[in-house]
């Protein structure tokens, strides 16, 4: 039963931590970094109350290692960081992708590169979230745009991580991390996905033999199943192989395992796209500015729409195609030099796509997006 609590003010980072605990997260390995530190602060306070474990590790490399280890140990686990720490976590994130270890990594984006702009927002880690670790690998990236949605998508991050045995990155910007919004959230949205542990005869268990859904069952330590975990490419028995036929089959399953589930993974919001001449693509805090800009453009008689990916990777290609089918121009607004724009250009063709970028540590304001919409509408000859 969902008891609705009265409206209260909740910070984005705090919403993330509380949702993680609701989702059943019982291990946090982290190293605090602005602008994500409130997540660690909240987890340190709250996890012991639910018999969970909080460990502040010596650095981000170790914290990601601890998260992977805790998850192999049978516990839902997460970490949170920002750009510099996200860079350090990449090696062990890749290990989680290869060994199919469920885990949630939060990256509250600040200006980069390097230590960059510690307290200012950016959206510069869009490609790093997809391709930051070496080698072809599956990963899911979610990008909420409000405090309420941080709560919902954090819960969903754990669902997806456990169900598909994949690292899930929750990616949002400094503004949303520190934003306090009035929310009327359910006190507890109910139980989250439980991990599907191996059952059946122990002597027949193969740790990486996929089930009907393409996902292998994990062995719970202590249940008596023999397992082996490695970052080396491994066969269904968990042990390394370099035999081309086996490597080909193993990689095909690993890289394709999300494909059959994209309807469940992909999520996007379309606003006024039906008859739109100009569609803005935006996510995170930029989507909030774009929503206002689209409404104001409509009020001025410009047929504008908003396509807002909530699942950033894998990108919601079919929803995007449907939303932009009638659009003459597409404007990709983002706080980077043009990262998601590359994907949009790939899908829609470069001639239809314009870019609106900001890199000075300030968010894009509604007026800037509105001006870009008006320019694009002018280019379509509509105005």
């Amino acid at each position, binding site marked *: 039963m969902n008891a609705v609590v009265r409206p209260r003010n909740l910070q984005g980072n705090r919403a993330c931590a509380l949702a993680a605990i609701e989702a059943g997260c019982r291990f946090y390995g982290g190293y605090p970094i602005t602008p994500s530190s409130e997540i660690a602060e909240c987890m340190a306070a709250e996890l012991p109350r639910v018999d969970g474990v909080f460990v502040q590790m010596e650095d981000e490399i170790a914290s990601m290692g601890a998260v992977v280890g805790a998850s192999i140990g049978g516990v839902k686990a997460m970490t949170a960081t920002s750009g510099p720490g996200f860079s350090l976590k990449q090696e062990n994130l890749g290990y989680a992708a290869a060994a199919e270890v469920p885990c949630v990594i939060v990256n509250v984006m600040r200006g980069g590169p390097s230590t960059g702009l510690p307290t200012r927002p950016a959206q510069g880690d869009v490609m790093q979230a997809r391709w930051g670790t070496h080698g072809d690998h599956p990963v899911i990236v979610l990008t909420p745009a409000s405090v309420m949605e941080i709560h919902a998508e954090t819960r969903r991050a754990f669902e997806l991580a456990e169900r598909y045995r994949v690292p899930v990155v929750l990616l949002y910007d400094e*503004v949303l991390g*520190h934003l*306090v*919004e009035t929310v009327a959230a359910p006190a507890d949205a109910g139980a989250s996905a439980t991990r599907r542990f191996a059952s059946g005869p122990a002597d027949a268990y193969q740790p990486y033999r996929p089930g009907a859904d393409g996902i292998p069952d994990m062995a719970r330590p202590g249940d008596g199943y023999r397992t082996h975990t490695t970052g080396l490419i491994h066969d269904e028995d968990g042990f390394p192989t370099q035999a081309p036929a086996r490597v080909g089959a193993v990689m095909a399953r690993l890289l394709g395992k999300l494909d059959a589930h994209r309807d469940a993974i992909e999520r996007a919001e379309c606003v006024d796209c039906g008859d739109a001449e100009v569609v803005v693509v935006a996510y995170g*805090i930029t989507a909030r500015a774009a*929503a*206002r800009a689209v409404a104001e453009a409509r009020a001025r008689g410009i047929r504008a729409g908003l396509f807002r990916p909530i699942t950033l990777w894998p990108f919601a290609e079919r929803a995007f195609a449907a939303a932009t089918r009638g659009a003459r121009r597409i404007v990709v607004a983002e706080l980077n030099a043009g990262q998601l724009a590359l994907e949009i250009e790939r899908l829609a063709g470069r001639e239809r796509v314009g870019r609106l970028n900001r890199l000075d540590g300030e968010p894009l304001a509604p007026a800037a997006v509105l001006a870009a919409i008006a320019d694009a509408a002018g280019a379509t000859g509509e105005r």
Partner: protein
Amino acid sequence: MSDTATRQIRLAGTGGQGLGLAGRLLADACVAAGHAVAQSQTYEPTSRGGSSRSDLVVADGTVDYPLVTALDALLLLDQAALEDAPALLREGALVVTDAALVPHPPAAQGELHALPLTARARELGNPRVANMVGLGALVGLAGWPAFEQVERAVETSTPARFRELNLAALRAGRALVATDASAA
């Protein structure tokens, strides 16, 4: 929702002056009064010094765009935090400044009240409650949200050992503007 359907407030100063806390308390008071709030903050990567501000967007329904675009009220505790505020002030906006720490307040656009906020806090025993003095003055002048809601937010959300001092500072701020208004 357009800008005109919201009330937008900025509390600005330097790191350590307690603008983040003041913003949170004001946001809590607004919610208690039945409004929806978005409160954002901007600060420098230093725990003391550097500009620091807390912005509020207050609406009767939901807040669509959560960052300020046109200010109805500005509390300014340090000249260094003026930044882009002058360009954001609406015609007739309420501006409350610390008279000693803001030698060059924003000109013309608003209703300016240069007040001895930090001096009054010092008289109360601790210059660090200048944020509460300023908040009391701002809410006293704006007449909104209800002063009692702000008092309640201070009571419930500040540590016990500072509660009485914070409340005294808040009320001292209101008293400053009661005087200011009668003198005007």
